[in-house]
């Protein structure tokens, strides 16, 4: 049995989902599409049933990918929990009426009941229940209020028997609203004033800059402290065990693969390049803290309702790049990991937009893993070098977008969206999302880091790195001004960018070389995980085009940096 949670976007569906289901929750893609939804289980009639969090939609007319999926999922479901935003009863009822025209049992949940009260909106739910002919319960999902009643009354869900034309539907909605809803006058709240201030350009742009500054300050603060006070101390327990193991293995091939090279007789987690030294330290102690910090802040930005406001503010700039404001979300996700960033480009309407967004993200948005190591590699030369790296990437992002928008024919559709009010995020839903993201980082990253480290060792042992170094010397040394050994980083960069940047550490690069290497590594090609997703998203041809742009531009920008710095 499948229970579907359906409703407009931003009605608190995910919070209800979080409340109904336990910890065993997975995010998956609807088969054959790229639309993501959450799946969990709950107990109903002494049975374990599936609960699906269907993407938010305004109607059942399939006009977008998300709506198509919602309609398809509706055909496979056995019951619908229709989550309604009590503060916007009128427009939410459109979907409700359409659901009641289907042959599926429905129960209506008036969520955000407290927010409606604050806004001076009163809804007579008994009367609404009578008119709709299906159970209606009110909830404040964030506080857990009404969830028990919802579960108890699931039994009573039943199909509606409406048959309405478009015009009749709006007429009926008008009648219902006038019968069940009263709105009292009240004053604007602080959060509404702040909400408006953050979309008005004069106040909104300074607020946006402040939020971004705060975001990165928090990420750095949390990341650095996790490393100094949690992960490095943990590795102090781990190191003696590895040293004993190293003595036990003695020297030889197995030792080189597992432990790697001892630097001055000791283990150096960045330079040793062994599976259980660098291979474990990089993903857990160097990258995970930043990934954790990043997703913590991002989840807060998402659930508080700030991102749509940012999307509105940057829409005009994004439009010049052939995108619209919502694409900023893909870029922000890409800063965490390019894989979810690439996946999120699916919500963009046209193929052209998806190509531009995916290419810009893959080429100029460094993921958190990469950023974490760049902070180490370039950061040791001071903040100036870091500034050059990120400003260069930003200029590339902007310029390439402008050019792609000019040379690729076609229109870019306009922004069209609701801006939800600011809300204090529900920590349960925040933690659940954080956990899902951390889990997928670990599952995706750790094997590739290990594989990367393994391949480096094999390539060295077989002399392939040295050979590649010789044949690419004109480019790597000539154009980019890097030592020959840096070529190995470019090879490994295809597997994992963090390991690749880490491999540059022992080379003792100058600031200029570190900047050039970081920029080129960020741009020249996506890592294998992103590459796989992009091939699926853009097709082989689209990806080939995208990849050619990346390689050419990386060499061009790298050479220029080498010349002018």
């Amino acid at each position: 049995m499948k229970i579907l949670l359906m409703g407009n976007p931003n009605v608190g569906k995910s919070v209800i989902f979080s409340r109904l289901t336990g910890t065993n929750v997975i995010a998956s893609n609807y088969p054959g599409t790229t639309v993501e939804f959450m799946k969990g289980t709950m107990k109903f009639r002494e049975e374990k049933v599936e609960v699906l969090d269907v993407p938010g939609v305004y109607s059942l007319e399939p006009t977008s990918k998300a709506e198509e999926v919602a309609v398809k999922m509706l055909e496979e479901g056995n019951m619908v929990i229709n989550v309604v935003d009590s503060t916007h009863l009128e427009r939410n009822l459109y979907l409700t009426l359409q659901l009641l025209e289907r042959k599926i049992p429905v129960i209506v949940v008036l969520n955000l009941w407290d927010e409606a009260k604050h806004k001076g909106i009163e809804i007579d739910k008994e009367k609404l229940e009578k008119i709709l002919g299906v159970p209606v319960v009110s909830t404040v999902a964030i506080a857990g209020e009404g969830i028990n009643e919802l579960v108890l009354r699931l039994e009573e869900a039943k199909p509606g028997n409406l048959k309405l034309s478009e015009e009749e539907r709006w007429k009926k909605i008008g009648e219902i609203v006038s019968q069940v809803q009263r709105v009292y006058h009240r004053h604007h709240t602080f959060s509404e004033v702040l909400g408006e201030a953050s979309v008005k350009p004069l106040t909104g742009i300074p607020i946006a800059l402040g939020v971004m500054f705060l975001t990165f300050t928090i990420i750095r603060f949390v990341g650095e402290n996790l490393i100094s006070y949690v992960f490095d101390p943990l590795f102090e327990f781990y190191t003696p065990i590895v040293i004993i193991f190293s003595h036990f293995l003695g020297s030889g091939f197995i030792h080189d693969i597992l432990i790697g090279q001892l630097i001055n007789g000791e283990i150096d987690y960045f330079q040793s390049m062994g599976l259980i030294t660098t291979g474990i330290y990089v993903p857990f102690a160097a990258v995970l803290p930043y990934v954790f910090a990043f997703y913590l802040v991002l989840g807060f930005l998402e659930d508080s309702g700030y991102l749509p406001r940012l999307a509105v503010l940057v829409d005009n700039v994004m439009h010049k790049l052939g995108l619209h404001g919502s694409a900023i979300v893909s870029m922000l996700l890409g800063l965490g990991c390019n894989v979810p960033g690439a996946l999120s480009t699916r919500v963009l309407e046209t193929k052209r937009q998806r190509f531009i967004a995916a290419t810009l993200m893959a080429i100029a948005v460094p993921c958190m893993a990469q950023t974490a190591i760049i902070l180490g590699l370039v950061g040791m030369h001071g903040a100036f070098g870091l500034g050059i790296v990120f400003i260069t990437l930003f200029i590339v992002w902007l310029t390439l977008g402008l050019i792609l928008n000019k040379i690729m024919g076609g229109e870019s559709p306009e922004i069209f969206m609701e801006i939800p009010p600011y809300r204090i995020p529900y920590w349960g839903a925040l933690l659940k999302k954080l956990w899902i993201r951390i889990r997928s980082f670990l599952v995706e990253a750790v094997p590739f880091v290990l594989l990367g480290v393994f391949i480096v060792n094999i390539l060295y042992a077989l002399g392939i790195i040295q050979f590649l170094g010789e044949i690419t010397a004109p480019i790597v040394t000539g154009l980019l001004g890097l030592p020959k050994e840096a070529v190995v980083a470019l090879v490994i960069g295809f597997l994992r960018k963090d390991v690749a940047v880490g491999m540059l550490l022992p080379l003792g690069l100058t600031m200029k070389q570190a900047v050039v290497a970081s920029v080129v590594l960020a741009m020249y090609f996506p890592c294998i995980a992103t590459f796989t997703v992009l091939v699926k998203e853009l097709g082989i041809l689209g990806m080939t085009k995208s990849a050619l742009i990346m390689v050419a531009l990386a060499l061009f920008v790298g050479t220029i940096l080498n010349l002018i710095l």
Partner: protein
Amino acid sequence: MGEFQTLAGMVVGKEGTIKKIEGGYGLQRRLACLGLRVGKTIRKVASEPLRGPIVVEVDGGHIAIGRGVAEKVWVEVK
């Protein structure tokens, strides 16, 4: 009788009633699902520079629409 203006042309902060929406059935429904229908009272909240989007308040909530669409929504300004 107030003055007729499009959402794009209206002054920020002004209120008005939607009188007419140009455009096809699809656009009409998309707007309706966000609360923008003929007869509704709206308030223009913000207008982004460089031909950016327009933000309007309707039913106590905020909606962002592109300037092209905003030029198709005619409002009798109070």
